[in-house]
């Protein structure tokens, strides 16, 4: 297995543990864990989009009241069941999002023709962003984009895209396997704790 793909495989194996989590506490811990995992590998955590997601999904579920009636806003009942269900779903989505962030931190390589095409796409992407930085002025935008495309399409692929720093990563294989194994045990362990009702129920 390629080093770059270890996190990808770990994420795919961990997905069901998050998707099938029944405990609300369990999903909160899992979400926190994958957020820490992604941020410790260079991904940024933005609080506002996550709060918006949490708020909007929870609010949407309030429209279908069920469970304990907490209080009312005007004639609109706020129920604990709907609130928990919405928050649980939002936490699942946030956990999946950050798991996905973590999965791509090692720049996974896709096999076959599609993989080559994606490599080619990223090669041109790098060329475009590099050329864009050299273009002045950047107004009008159409002229600037036109200039970039003329420059980039003016030459063929100078060197075939190649897996970046793969050789340098080989020595991390064992370390990556062990650490990702630990992540898997933790995420599946939390799933089991939730399924067996060992975690506190809200």
């Amino acid at each position: 297995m390629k080093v770059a793909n270890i996190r990808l495989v770990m994420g795919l194996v961990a997905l069901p543990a998050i998707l099938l989590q029944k405990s609300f506490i369990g999903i909160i811990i899992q979400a926190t864990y994958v957020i820490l995992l992604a941020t410790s590998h260079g991904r940024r955590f933005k609080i506002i989009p996550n709060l918006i997601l949490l708020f909007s999904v929870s609010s949407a579920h309030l429209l279908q009241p069920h469970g304990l009636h907490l209080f009312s806003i005007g004639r609109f009942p706020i129920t604990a069941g709907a609130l928990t269900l919405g928050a649980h779903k939002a936490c699942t989505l946030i956990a999946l999002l950050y798991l996905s962030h973590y999965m791509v931190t090692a720049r996974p390589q896709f096999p076959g023709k599609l993989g080559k095409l994606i490599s080619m796409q990223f090669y041109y992407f790098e060329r475009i962003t590099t050329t864009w930085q050299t273009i002045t002025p950047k107004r009008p935008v159409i002229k600037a984009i036109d200039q970039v495309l003329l420059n980039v399409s003016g030459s063929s692929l100078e060197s075939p895209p190649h897996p970046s720093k793969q050789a340098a990563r080989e020595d991390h294989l064992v370390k990556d396997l062990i650490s990702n194994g630990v992540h898997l045990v933790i995420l599946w362990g939390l799933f089991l704790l939730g399924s067996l009702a060992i975690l506190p129920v809200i």
Partner: protein
Amino acid sequence: MTYPSKSRQVRIEFVALLAACALFLSTVEYLIPKPVPFMRIGLANLPLIIGLGLLKEKEYMLLALLKVLGQGLVTGTIFSYIVLFSIAGTIASTTLMYIVYRFFNRWVSLIGVSIAGAMASNIAQLLLSRYLLFGAAARLIAPPFLVVGLISSILLGIFAQQFVQKSQWYNSLQEGPL
């Protein structure tokens, strides 16, 4: 590299170039704050609109696929629910834009094509959000979502129209059949 060539490799490289352009524009868009995570302006759709006049059917679909995968990889959302919205929106919009451009090209400008694509994309995403996120409450976000989509697609259509008219790069491609 001369794009008007019929060489398969050159054409594939051209698709990769357009997909890279979509990626570049999507990273620009990623930096713009959004009120709802999956709500997008659609800047990355510009290459899809431009590609309508340059690519064959299969190449156009390949461009759409590369756009979704590349965007997911750059933003790190490829294995999350967000990519489902991206796939649904892109499949719906590219299919409708292709049909509108191929069969109604005489009567519909790129602005119309852009509006059709945005509406198809937004409706597909709204349907998905009904099952994935909001349930029946999805109808509450539909009006603002569609209005924002309509406005941004008009702006994008105007931009695409201007680009096609003014771009030296685009016009050099038009000199021969791609």
